[in-house]
């Protein structure tokens, strides 16, 4: 891919990328921006190279997920060594609607994989197969996480299966 093509692809998926970055960073906007920028940087300088085995979208989301995970690990190490300048991540909960808080609260109770699959499918709008590609798991595994997560969310949010 030429730098121009990469730039065009990044621009196309920018909003979804930011949304996924928010999801990976516990809805901390500042950290999500840093992670997204670091992901762009990785792609630009070739540390993350698109090999064409998947779609660019799932490749980008995979890079964002990995970068967020690295950022989280670095923050934990800094906290462990007692660095004073560590900024505690803040989820944007001020002025949040009850609906939003309930949804985020229920998501927080899910195991990580289930949460990731549900966010990729419902929040980002990927198919379960694309979510599997992003997470590096088989479609069958992603489908299991999707079904279990969906059932648990319905239970936590009090969504009735009957009209």
């Amino acid at each position, binding site marked *: 891919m030429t730098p121009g093509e990469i730039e065009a692809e990044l621009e196309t998926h920018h909003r979804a990328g930011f949304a996924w970055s928010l999801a990976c960073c516990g*809805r901390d906007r500042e950290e999500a921006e840093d992670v*997204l920028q670091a992901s762009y940087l990785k792609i630009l300088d070739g540390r993350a190279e698109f090999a064409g085995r998947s779609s660019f979208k799932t490749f980008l989301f995979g890079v964002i997920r990995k970068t967020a995970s690295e950022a989280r690990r670095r923050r934990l190490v800094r906290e462990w060594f007692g660095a004073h300048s560590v900024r505690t991540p803040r989820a944007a909960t001020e002025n949040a609607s009850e609906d939003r808080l309930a*949804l*985020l609260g229920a998501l927080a109770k899910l195991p990580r994989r289930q949460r990731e699959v549900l966010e990729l499918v*419902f*929040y980002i709008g990927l198919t379960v197969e694309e979510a599997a590609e992003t997470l590096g798991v088989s479609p069958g595994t992603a489908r299991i996480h999707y079904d279990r997560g969906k059932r648990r969310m*319905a239970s936590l949010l009090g969504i009735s*299966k009957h*009209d």
Partner: protein
Amino acid sequence: MTEDRVERDLAARFQRLRDEDDSHAPLFRTLYDAAHRKDSLPRRRFFMLIAAAATIPVVVAVVVLRRPAGPARFLPEADANAIAAWTSPTESLLDTPGSELYGEAPAIAEPIPEWIFDSNAPSSTTPPLSTPAPKGVSS
């Protein structure tokens, strides 16, 4: 289609969440340009680091090779000869009696007796070894 109902409900909730979050999304150009600027910075730093690391051994080599020879590095010839001629005051102790035997090959007495070369000569012609009997032993 009860599952569809759950999916529809969840999709609607997540969509509202997404709409709220999208309104705070940063501009693509802002993030992309900032990433572009950062892209060139570490590379420049990396090459500067490599250049600095490569310079150190070169500077050390130049300093060592071009160091001027000091006056103490080579001895004057007279001093060198004096040191070479020096002997220890206790060297005479190393001379042991008979030490000259180690410095020369033993000489064989002449003329050599004929019987030494005569292989047919009876063994009786060999002069007996005249070893004196130990004291107190009678033959």
